[in-house]
């Protein structure tokens, strides 16, 4: 019996292989536990008074305010340089300027024109439910309420499902389908984005693209469908033609000043604002070539983006795998007014050692996605 070489003995190679795979996963995870990564990303805002970016960085448990020219400010000086960002503090101290660039400043005006938007690849890359909530956008009430139905998209239309009975509301589905087709919408839907939450001031409905990559807005006004065609890539005659062949990402927004419907990203990674009048404008176009190599591009699959908007400017921050990019754009025209690209600092020693002693690092979770999948050396 002892001399029999059974094919079963070859199973030891499976054990060895499994052992190696598990080591490639667990050893880097253990190493990370022992030497945790500290990722202190500074908060950056464009100062319209200083005409540069000011970063707020925590060092030695203290917040430091430093502009991109290297000049450091006290907290009080920074508040003065960022009157729209720190207006509450300035109001409390009685230091809020009466006007800025000819615009009379009031806390209400500043608040209405401030908005914040943040998203990351991980937030976008997750399995979609495939059900959407169409809120009533003109109920006449201040508070939004949840509708009694949700809708799903099909290859040739959409179906509203009544929550109480779990059956399809054919009349409502047909009315929305008719309104969409009346505006030239062709199914199936390629992309759709809406904010189904009632925790917002008002509702802009959904931005969606049809089978021919045309961009539409769909919302419900007093129980009836409202459809607006926003952009048609095939309509070359339009004065609004922006040379977009298709869209890769849509975001519906509801900023307090009601100037925007949302943001869209074209397949060549340009970012556009959809204004409330239905026109779209490229954000951060560097038409005056203020700074070389500063064309704003946004890849939703590999960049984290933060937009901090105020009355006069938007500060757009993008974090990529290799650098941090800061853009300031005019809040009205969306033209770029400043830009800075800061390469990431050299990796800390612990990470460099990890790369040498653990050349193959297997992970099943990623900063890019919520999906569990094997990734090799995806740091």
């Amino acid at each position: 019996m002892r001399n029999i070489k059974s094919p079963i003995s070859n199973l030891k190679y499976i054990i060895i292989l499994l052992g190696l795979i598990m080591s490639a996963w667990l050893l880097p995870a253990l190493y990370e536990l022992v030497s945790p990564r500290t990722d202190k990303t500074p908060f950056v805002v464009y100062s319209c008074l200083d005409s540069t970016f000011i970063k707020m960085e925590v060092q030695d448990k203290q917040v430091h305010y430093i502009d991109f020219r290297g000049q450091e400010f006290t907290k009080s000086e920074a508040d003065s340089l960022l009157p729209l960002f720190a207006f509450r503090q300035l109001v409390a101290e009685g230091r809020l300027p009466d006007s800025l660039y000819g615009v009379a400043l009031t806390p209400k005006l500043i608040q209405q024109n401030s908005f914040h938007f943040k998203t990351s690849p991980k937030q976008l890359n997750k399995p979609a439910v495939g059900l959407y909530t169409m809120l009533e956008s003109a109920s006449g009430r201040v508070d939004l309420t949840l509708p009694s139905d949700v809708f799903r998209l099909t290859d040739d239309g959409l179906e509203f499902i009544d929550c109480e009975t779990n059956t399809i509301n054919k009349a409502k589905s047909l009315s929305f389908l008719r309104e969409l087709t009346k505006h030239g919408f062709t199914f199936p839907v390629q992309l759709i984005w809406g904010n189904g939450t009632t925790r917002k001031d008002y509702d802009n409905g959904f931005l969606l693209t049809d089978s021919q990559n045309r961009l539409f807005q769909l919302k419900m006004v007093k129980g009836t469908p409202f459809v607006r065609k926003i952009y048609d890539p095939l309509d070359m005659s339009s004065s609004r033609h922006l040379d977009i062949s298709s869209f890769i990402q849509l975001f519906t927004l509801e900023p307090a000043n009601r100037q925007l419907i949302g943001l869209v990203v074209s397949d060549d990674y340009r970012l556009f604002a959809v204004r409330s009048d239905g026109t779209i404008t490229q954000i951060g176009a560097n038409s005056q070539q203020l700074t070389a190599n500063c064309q704003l591009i946004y890849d939703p699959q590999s960049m984290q983006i933060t937009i901090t908007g105020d009355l006069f400017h938007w500060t757009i921050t993008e974090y990529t795998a290799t650098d941090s990019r800061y853009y300031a754009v005019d809040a009205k025209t969306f033209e770029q007014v400043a830009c800075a690209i800061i390469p990431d600092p050299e990796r800390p020693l612990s990470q460099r050692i990890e790369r040498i002693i653990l050349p193959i690092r297997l992970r099943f979770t990623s900063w890019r996605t919520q999906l569990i999948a094997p990734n090799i050396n995806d740091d």
Partner: protein
Amino acid sequence: MLRAIFYKEWLKLRLFWCLALVVHIGLIAYLLLALRSTLLASGIVETWATMIGRDVLMVNALMYLPLITGVCIALCQWLPEMQVKRIRLTLHLPIDYTMSIGAMLFCSLICLCGLFALDAAVLAIVEQIWLPRELVWRTFLTCLPWFIGGLLGYSVTSWCLLEPQWKIRCVDFLIGAPIVALCFLTAQPACYISMWPWLVLAILATMCLPFYSIYRFKLGKQ
């Protein structure tokens, strides 16, 4: 001979299987009653909105039950065999040992798959009364890695228990436990859709490993 092996395994496992059946049905009934209670108390519209908007499916209590069942069924099946080396009797049957051990593993897998299929079917059939098909499918996709975790828990425990040497058993456990843990990396709904081929490969690979432990046992490793 195989029928006799199946019958012997059924005699060995039936008590535990019936107990597991009661626990599984009990937990599924609890989950469904909890869902019904939430639908009635919070309102159907609000519950649907929470499930759609906040990725809540209310089945998280089921997460580790398939794993516990898989490990326990392996313990019930192999501990009596290994305690006084009773497995030798099986190995001396006039049938190839891969066939007899394969039949024993198959018997337990059928028991486990039956339980898990029952869980999934009862959940889906009852949920589709209250929920749209997208949420029912999402619930199934969320539970599926937990069921696979149960199968992996069974195969890894069997592999470790059948291993005759303690030090190798520890190594087997160190390799096997993370493989099982792969099925429990997140409770986020439907996040394993890219992992199905890898998890199927993991099941196939780990189901082969008890044969290697028995092979070593036959070689007389102590």
